[in-house]
């Protein structure tokens, strides 16, 4: 998902250029909204997440590290905000879902083009528990590396791998049920 902002725009934003901030917003906001809604499943809360992510970016503009991706930073902020909301809302015990606590489920065949339309996948993803939705969105929505996902979610790389595996298994099963 393209959230790349050119360095010139970032420098202009850091020096207080309002138009540069607008350009960053227009490029990244739809992506952040997609991330938030896929994690939260709620449009109103997703708007709050995107708003807060940009407000935080704005307030830290003077402290942005050079050569660090602003787009990636925004994704991290938004993902963390959405995850925090899920935690608060559902009071889930994310830690209890570490590898050893997850039950093995039967493996469904990989998703193919017949059942794996954009709408069907998004619908099915919405039915998954948030911990699985989140890793799937970060991995496939943002093409984040396992280490990056582990960093954002504050879990181990092996936990990321396992959640992705379980998430895909559940997604396949959900899609099969939609048939």
């Amino acid at each position, binding site marked *: 998902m393209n959230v790349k902002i050119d360095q010139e725009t970032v420098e202009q934003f850091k020096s207080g250029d309002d138009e540069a901030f607008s350009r960053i917003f227009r490029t990244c906001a739809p992506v952040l*909204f997609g991330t938030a809604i896929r994690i939260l499943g709620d449009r109103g809360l997703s708007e709050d997440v995107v708003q807060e992510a940009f407000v935080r970016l704005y307030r830290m503009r003077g402290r942005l590290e050079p050569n660090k991706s602003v787009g990636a930073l925004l994704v991290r902020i938004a993902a963390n905000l959405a995850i925090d909301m899920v935690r608060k809302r559902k009071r889930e015990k994310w830690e209890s879902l570490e590898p050893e606590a997850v039950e093995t489920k039967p493996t469904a065949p990989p998703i193919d083009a017949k059942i794996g339309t954009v709408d069907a996948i*998004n619908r099915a993803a919405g039915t998954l528990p948030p911990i699985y939705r989140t890793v799937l969105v970060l991995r496939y929505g943002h093409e984040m590396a396992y280490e990056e996902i582990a960093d954002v979610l504050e879990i181990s790389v092996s936990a990321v791998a396992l959640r992705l595996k379980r998430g895909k298994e559940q997604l396949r099963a959900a899609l099969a049920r939609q048939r």
Partner: protein
Amino acid sequence: MNCTEARELFDMHLDGALEPTVSASVKDHLQGCSSCQAAYRAMQVESQLLKQALQAEVSSATEIARIEARVRKTVRPEGHVIADLGEWAVPVLGTVLGLLALVGGRFDGAAVRDAVCLSLNPRGGLPVAIPSVLVVALVLLTVITLQSFIFRTGEQD
């Protein structure tokens, strides 16, 4: 590496998350196993479908415009340098300057103690003469602080 072991690693191999030596073993197995090649291709297709679906835009222009308006309302317009000092910097600075003003510009501990004692005892009258420069600074900072807080409260409404 047998088929079961290789297939267990397909996800991570596809995602480039395996150690190079393990990844090489998976590749070796794939080269010599047609059934695993078919299974791996199916997972590649799945991976592409997931990317397409989870990267698809789901927001409307109205929603994005509404969020932008809310962001604009919340963040400070340029020129409000005071906001960048942090929420507590100005009040703390004002308090410190105020204390310094109360002790009449003397900075030793005894002066502070005397000033506090005198302030607690109204019959003692005003502690000491307050240097006009510090008074002006204190007043200015108070005004700026109040303006800053009022402005922020207004934005959050």
